[in-house]
């Protein structure tokens, strides 16, 4: 029998357990409780390696040229933008990031996730105590880096708009501003999930094609909030009238978060010994995405 990666991680995870569950019922399915429960099941030293590994993955991710391309493209857009029309300016600071930053973030995470396989390091790394399941966990944690960076970018951008009294029509809500960073988070996690499940050439392009295609289709429909690139204000007739897009920005943010974390659960499902846990988490997140997806619509 071959020790496939999944089997390896399952066997490794079921190795000597130095700490047991702390007792008490599972904490109602919250993500943090699930993560805590999972972490408690791991051998102490292996468990403690995950944050250090996440930091290493974060450094790899943040200095990847494609990760840097996101803020570079956004900056280029900001400098080339005229800031003349409020609808247009509103779109730039709320939705622009989805494509300019989200797409490169997806490919960056995917390339980092498949780097060991492409370089032929997988065999070497598969014989270390901290196995691929933990590397995936670390990669998922590292996805918080681009998310925080994108959030900071948005905050600074909004601050500059307010400082220079840019006409945005109205001040965007935190949920509208969160859409971009949440898409960056989801894209990074989905890039990792794609790397874990189908680490083959061309697959990330196919996945991105599907995502963009889906977004394009729903953008043409009345349920445009189901997409990722959503404009919260509309160009309407008569021209230049500032009009709110129908739909809930709050539930759209929840929808994006659920989809993003769902991608993370999908990544974890690949190699984890606690498949049931991640299947359950994935199902809960799909349910959350469906409900918030419905509730966000007008």
């Amino acid at each position, binding site marked *: *029998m*071959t*020790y496939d990666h999944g089997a*390896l991680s399952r*066997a*490794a995870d079921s*190795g*000597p357990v130095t700490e047991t569950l702390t007792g008490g019922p599972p904490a109602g399915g919250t993500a943090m409780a699930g993560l805590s429960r999972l972490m408690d099941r791991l*051998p102490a*030293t*292996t468990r*403690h*390696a995950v*944050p*250090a*590994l996440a930091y*290493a993955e974060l450094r*790899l991710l943040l*200095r*990847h040229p494609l990760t840097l391309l996101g803020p570079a493209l956004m900056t280029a857009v900001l400098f080339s933008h005229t800031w003349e029309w409020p609808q247009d300016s509103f779109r730039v600071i709320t939705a622009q990031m989805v494509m300019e930053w989200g797409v490169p973030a997806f490919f960056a995470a995917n390339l980092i996730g498949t*780097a*060991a396989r*492409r*370089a*032929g*390091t997988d*065999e*070497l*790394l*598969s*014989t*270390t*105590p*901290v196995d691929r399941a933990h*590397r995936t966990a670390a990669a998922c944690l590292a996805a918080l880096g681009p998310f925080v960076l994108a959030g900071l970018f948005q905050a600074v951008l909004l601050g500059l708009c307010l400082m220079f009294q840019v006409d945005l029509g109205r001040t965007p809500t935190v949920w509208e501003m969160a859409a971009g960073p949440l898409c960056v988070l989801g894209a990074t996690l989905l890039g990792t999930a794609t790397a874990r499940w189908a680490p083959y050439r061309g697959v990330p392009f196919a996945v991105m094609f599907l995502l963009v295609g889906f977004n394009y289709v729903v953008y043409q429909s009345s349920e445009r909030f189901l997409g990722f690139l959503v404009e919260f204000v509309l160009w309407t007739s008569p021209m230049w009238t500032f009009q709110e897009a129908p739909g809930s920005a709050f539930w759209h943010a929840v929808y994006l978060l659920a989809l993003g974390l769902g991608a993370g659960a999908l990544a974890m499902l690949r190699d984890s010994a606690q498949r049931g846990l991640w299947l359950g988490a994935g199902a809960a997140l799909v349910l959350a995405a469906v409900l918030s997806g419905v509730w966000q619509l007008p």
Partner: protein
Amino acid sequence: MIEAAGLVKTYGRGRALDGLTFTVGKGVTGLLGPNGAGKTTLIRMLATVLAPDEGELRLLGRDPAGDRLEIRRRLGYLPQEPGYQRGFTVFEFVDYVAILKEMVERRARHDEVRRVIEEVGLTSVSGKRIRTLSGGMRRRLGIAQTLLGDPELILLDEPTVGLDPEQRLRFRELISHIGQDRAVVLSTHQTEDVAALCNRVVVLKAGRCVFEGTPEEIRALAEGRVWFSAEKSGVLSWRTGDGLFRNIGPAPEGARLAEPTVEDGYLLLLGGTAAEAAA
């Protein structure tokens, strides 16, 4: 350190390992064998990457089926073709592997990383990207990561492939040093490396162990069976630089005998004749 009995590994219809039995203790052990003999399969099995289909294997006194994690904590492994991720510097790569070896305390880990990098003589290039290193330096980098955490068992699969003579010399120096107080298993088909480095040799042929002993014992198999002649003769022969044929096999009466090498013994083993003679 390693006890293997009746190991079998099958790929489709072919048997990579066919009832392999051997033991390995402290020191440097050479795994010799032609291509396809099962060396890499065996090394991967010892590295807990593969499990045997049949047979018993104990690594560091433990069963790899149940105690894989514990074994991995005491193991260093260099695969035959270790790739290195683009963009890593020497230090970063070793540091990354150190984290995977559960070294979580940053300062202690960095000290350990610096130690192993120094041990393989790469300190001067520790900040350089791996892609800028020579083949020999990359091999040393591969060895550096095996030394992390001072493992009791180090497995090296064909570590001298592609090295120039000077690099091989440096490699031998390094392995002989690290093999002083631990078990090092070195898979190779370079008999010179075995003769120069190993205190024990296991010869594989078609997935079976056909010899287990010291380099001197394998060399002794060819004692009185290597000779020079003007004509081609023996089981194996080749023309040397001075125009004479160096022959290996039963020596004819009056033949000018030559001092055998480990390679001669190894070639005889592969031919099957020496094993019969030894028996």
